[in-house]
């Protein structure tokens, strides 16, 4: 137990230090001309994640201190007040950490959607603001884990929990607006991102249900809560994780992943996730409690539990395909090139993998006018091309726009669209 406590303490300290460096890097060490409102959505998601870690994780350190003191001399923390203090401190960390586990993947999905529709992310500023509001709101909802304890201000925590639907809705509006009229390329990354949208929505909508204390009393400690949680963190975050993984793997390693195996991975994981977690809602509503190793044979939960177990097996098979994909891709070593997806953001302007400090003389930092500098360059090139064509019959090409700027190798056919 002491080892576990020390391990969690060190891990939390590590997270706090890492978040400090992430925040400092994003806020103070950006490339020239990259203002805060020219950062990619993914970077913004990393900023709000770092802020939440810095604000919430110290509470875990205090909770662990109570734990340690209790182990040294139980009499020192024997009053009920200490139990309440431990629960409050733990959940003050425990709820934001769920958001820490999905905010970065919301950013991954946003980047994948913008890249594979060839459009700017719709409602960029609104999404940035909603991320900040969402993250702040998520600091104020921890008490909904204690609804049934009778110790909390349920009205407040119900209100704040339901309030989170507003910034979440703005983000979804951004996702859908980006897809609207986009030229969608169904790569593996995009498939994971597209699947994230409805599946995470299920997690969010069931969250609204359990944010209502009256319903929460009914489903408290049941499989319904597990269903909500797994749709958020597995069907949501893990799909976002793989969207980001398939998007940035070529950038990080310089080699492409096998798309055919990637799509098989996506298909199996999508089937597996839904076959596993949909039964959780029905089981939970039927009263099956969580944290049980077995149950009475006549409870009526066997068939759904069996279906769920089969689904878990399918998820396991999908992970095997993923590992096979890594092996095959490492063996085949198909070179990625600097910008295999016609990406828009700054990382696609440098080599794959990037050199130390990301840019060098071969790959200089391009001029940054927005969060999608490569898309800007493509749009300017297209405008010049159109002007050149029109110039044969009409006005001279000089009227088309400013001179060419470095766009990164391999400009693609992205259509751009208007910045929202």
């Amino acid at each position, binding site marked *: 137990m002491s080892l576990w406590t020390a391990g969690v303490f060190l891990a939390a300290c590590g997270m706090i230090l890492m978040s400090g460096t992430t925040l400092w890097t994003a806020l103070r060490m950006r490339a020239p001309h990259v203002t*805060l409102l020219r950062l990619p959505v993914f970077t913004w998601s990393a900023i709000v994640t770092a802020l939440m870690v810095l604000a919430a994780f110290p509470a875990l350190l205090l909770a662990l201190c109570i734990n340690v003191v209790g182990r040294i001399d139980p009499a020192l923390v024997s009053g009920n007040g200490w139990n309440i203090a431990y629960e409050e401190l733990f959940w003050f960390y425990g709820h934001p950490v769920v958001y820490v586990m999905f905010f970065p993947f919301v950013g991954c999905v946003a980047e994948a959607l913008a890249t594979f529709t060839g459009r700017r992310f719709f409602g960029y500023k609104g999404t940035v603001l909603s991320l900040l509001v969402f993250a702040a709101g998520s600091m104020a909802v921890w008490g909904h884990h204690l609804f049934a304890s009778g110790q909390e201000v349920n009205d407040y925590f119900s209100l704040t929990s339901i309030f989170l639907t507003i910034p979440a809705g703005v983000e979804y509006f951004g996702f859908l607006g980006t897809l609207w009229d986009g030229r969608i390329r169904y790569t593996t990354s995009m498939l994971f991102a597209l699947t994230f949208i409805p599946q995470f929505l299920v997690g969010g909508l069931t969250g609204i249900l359990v944010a209502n204390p009256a319903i929460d009393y009914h489903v408290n400690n049941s499989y319904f809560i597990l269903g909500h949680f797994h749709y958020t963190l597995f069907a949501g975050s893990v799909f976002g994780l793989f969207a980001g993984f398939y998007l940035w793997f070529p950038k990080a390693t310089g080699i492409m992943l096998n798309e055919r195996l990637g799509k098989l991975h996506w298909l199996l994981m999508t089937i597996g996730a839904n076959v596993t977690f949909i039964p959780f809602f029905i089981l939970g509503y039927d009263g099956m409690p969580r944290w049980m190793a077995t149950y009475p044979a006549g409870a009526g939960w066997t068939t759904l539990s069996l279906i769920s177990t089969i689904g878990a097996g399918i998820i396991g098979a999908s992970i095997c395909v993923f590992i096979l994909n890594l092996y095959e891709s490492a063996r085949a070593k198909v070179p990625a090139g600097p910008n295999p997806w016609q990406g828009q953001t700054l990382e696609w302007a440098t080599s794959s993998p990037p050199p130390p400090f990301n840019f060098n003389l071969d790959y200089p930092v391009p001029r940054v006018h927005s969060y999608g500098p490569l898309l800007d360059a493509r749009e300017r090139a297209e405008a010049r091309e159109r002007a050149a064509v029109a110039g044969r019959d009409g006005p001279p090409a000089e009227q088309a726009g400013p001179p060419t700027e470095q766009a990164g190798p391999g400009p693609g056919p992205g259509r751009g669209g208007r910045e929202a």
Partner: protein
Amino acid sequence: MERRFSGTSVVLIWGAFNAVLAAVLAGFVASATVGGAGPAGALGFVIYAASTTLVFLVALAVWAGRRRRRGLREPPRPGAALLLAAGVAIAWTGLAIGAWTLYLAAAAVLAAVVFEFYPRIRPPE
């Protein structure tokens, strides 16, 4: 607007959002209409207020660091950090294995200190 939207203001704005939510929590805790929540609610408010204060301290740190040199440099001796981490990890395993691992940990930490500071005293030619 973009120029005014600085790193400090981002953290301040986020802290302000939290301050508003903490203030609303205080109102709920004190309210007789919604029943308050006794000591648990008050404690929750204290934790939230302390966390919000921490956010403002982070904003202060970001503001104080605005004039720090922004140049990039490679870490001179990353091996020292690795040795230090190994030392802490060895000390940690001592909780399960036995206190004698502290001797190993001390050796690793000492090596890290030497590895970090010796080249500063005698820089390589």
